């Protein structure tokens, strides 16, 4: 209640007049009432009432201290956070090595960034995650929906259909092995049509459309409360060309990052971004680094770098607050994103048919 008038989110002209009239704290404003205020400042009674309503909302929002609006702060102890994090699910990637280095999979409420050279599998992983987020809870998934924001136009529905079909088959195999009631009931809802209907796709052609879409995203997520994954495929592409003003770019990117963090926390969803690689030219050699500059590196909580080693695709966990740095190989098959089959285990080099049958054992451990 001792809040300074100059810090209230009123119109600047109104604020200036209040300060000029001598008002100092919000409490003073509330005590004066709308009629008194309108007489002193020289504004209409309706305007005075509006201003008081804003002041009241601000003060009550601050005093209550709960996670109601986006402006309020939240307080909780680390124990509560621990319980929350342990109860939270992960979005599995179907590549058990990658899930292991991530500590279980893609974490909800965090921003994960995937950087890599073209063709290495970033969009493949994004499409895989958009399907995996929908896996029902009895199979170890989070039973959510997905928002896919595409800036590069690399989303191919046929490919998502292939991945989804493989995922459904995999779950069917588990259900057959276990023969439990809720497994079979969940399978009825988990079909190709339902998976595809719950991937909400936005095609943004330039950075303005991307900014606009991210501004509208909180409203969209409030309407579709089951969304647990937001993918922005190609956050670098709209910002990399045609941007003369680099400081504007940094500011817009930081704003985007902040909004995405708020979205991730408020709606308990995972945010996955893909980034491109660029060459940094040093004195004697040039190295490949993630694009968008150093300051963007702080935006994501978890950073994965995908790269090639001869013809093997590798994923490196580059930045993570809880897991250590490590590199694992992965494979992209016709079924989607998968582990590399170790040669000793299977005679069949093709290996992709064996993959679904290897999963049931891992699912039981979970």
């Amino acid at each position, binding site marked *: 209640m001792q809040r300074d008038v100059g810090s209230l*989110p009123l119109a600047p002209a*109104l604020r200036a007049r209040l300060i000029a009239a001598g008002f100092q704290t919000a409490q003073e404003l509330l005590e004066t009432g709308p009629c008194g205020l309108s007489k002193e400042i020289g504004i209409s009674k309706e305007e005075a009432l509006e201003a008081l309503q804003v002041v009241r909302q601000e003060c009550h929002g601050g005093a209550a201290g709960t996670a109601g609006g986006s402006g309020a702060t939240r307080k909780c102890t680390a124990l509560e956070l621990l319980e929350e994090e342990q109860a939270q699910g992960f979005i599995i990637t179907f590549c058990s090595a990658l899930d292991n280095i991530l500590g279980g999979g893609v974490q909800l409420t965090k921003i994960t960034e995937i950087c890599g050279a073209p063709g*290495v599998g970033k969009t493949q992983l994004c499409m895989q995650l958009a399907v995996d987020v929908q896996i029902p809870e009895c199979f170890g998934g989070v039973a959510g929906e997905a928002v896919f924001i595409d800036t*590069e136009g690399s989303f191919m529905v046929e490919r998502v259909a292939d991945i989804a079909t493989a995922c459904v088959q995999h779950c069917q195999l588990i259900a057959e092995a276990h023969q439990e009631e809720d497994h079979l009931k969940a399978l009825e809802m988990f079909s190709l049509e339902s*998976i595809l209907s719950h991937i909400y796709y936005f095609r943004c052609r330039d950075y303005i*459309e991307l900014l606009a879409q991210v501004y509208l995203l909180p409203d969209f997520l409030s309407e579709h409360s089951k969304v647990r994954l937001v993918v922005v495929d190609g956050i670098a592409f709209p910002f990399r*060309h045609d941007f003369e003003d680099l400081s504007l770019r940094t500011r817009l990117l930081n704003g985007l990052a902040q909004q995405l963090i708020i979205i991730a926390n408020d709606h308990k969803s995972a945010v996955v971004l893909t980034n491109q690689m660029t060459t940094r030219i040093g004195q004697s050699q040039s190295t490949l680094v993630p694009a968008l500059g150093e300051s963007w590196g702080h935006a994501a909580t978890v950073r994965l770098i995908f790269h090639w080693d001869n013809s093997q695709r590798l994923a490196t966990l580059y930045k993570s607050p809880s897991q250590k740095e490590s590199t694992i190989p992965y494979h992209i098959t016709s079924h989607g994103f998968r582990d590399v089959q170790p040669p000793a285990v299977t005679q069949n080099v093709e290996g992709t048919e064996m993959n679904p049958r290897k999963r049931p054992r891992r699912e039981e451990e979970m």
Partner: protein
Amino acid sequence: MAAKKLRRARLSQELCERLSRHQITTCQDFLCLSLLELMKVTGQSYYDVQKLLRKVSQACAPKMQTAYEMKLRKSVNPSSAFLSTTLHSLDKVLHGGVPCGSLTEITSPPGCGKTQFCIMVSVLATLPVSMGGLGGTVIYIDTESAFSAERLIEIAGNRFPTYFDSDEKLFCMTRSIHLYRELTCGSVLKRIMSLEEEIISKKVKLIVIDSVASVVRKEFDTRLQGNLAERSNFLARGASVLKYLAEEFSIPVILTNQITTSLSNGFPIQADLVSPADDLSLSEAGIFSPEGNSKSCLKPSMNYVVSPERHLEFSLGR
């Protein structure tokens, strides 16, 4: 969308006038400002400014579609989703042929058959839909002056002798292929920007650019500082316009690239001159590479979103 004027975003007249005094006339100007700047410029409170932001965003934001709706739309018209190349194994790997609505890149060392492939696909595009073509005209942007009209007629006559049985039919086909010779990066970009109206007026069903690499190679020496950024700028702008055209009109766009040797750890390895997806953000790329004398290998490359790498062989003939 970005250049949309604010009054079309349903903002009130007086607000638009007030904003135009600060040189803010388009949605782009509005959305690039921070909240505090917006408050100062509009003279409204924090919450009202947020409402305004949402209003302007709604004017710019793309429409939502679910993946299911996209799939239904494609399955309603399966024949229009691909342009068959009439090479059966290639079509099988590509799930039907050259996809409509996205960019496809063909890359190879010189002499492998890229231009021949482009000429053949141009003929295919002019064929009626009943024969597996697209029944439309072709825009062919040639930067190397490698297009030969005689070769075009030769391929058409030998490939489809029953259809092109008269000179009349052949000339009709050649009239459907609009050739543009562009020799600099700037003119290529200008041509790409002007394509939208031509596509509508001439009922274009295929765009071929042969080749992107030659103009880029002539003008940008990447060893010079600053050229790398300009080159990526040029390529990215061209690519985004081409992608927009491909998606908007659901037509295939084919680009050709060259392979150059890049020294990596002292060993020369074959690498694309214009890094395909980094610069162009492509969804598909195919690599022709020479193996032996008359046979060439077609290897859809790593940047394949639809299917994994496959190895095919074909030969250049009549």
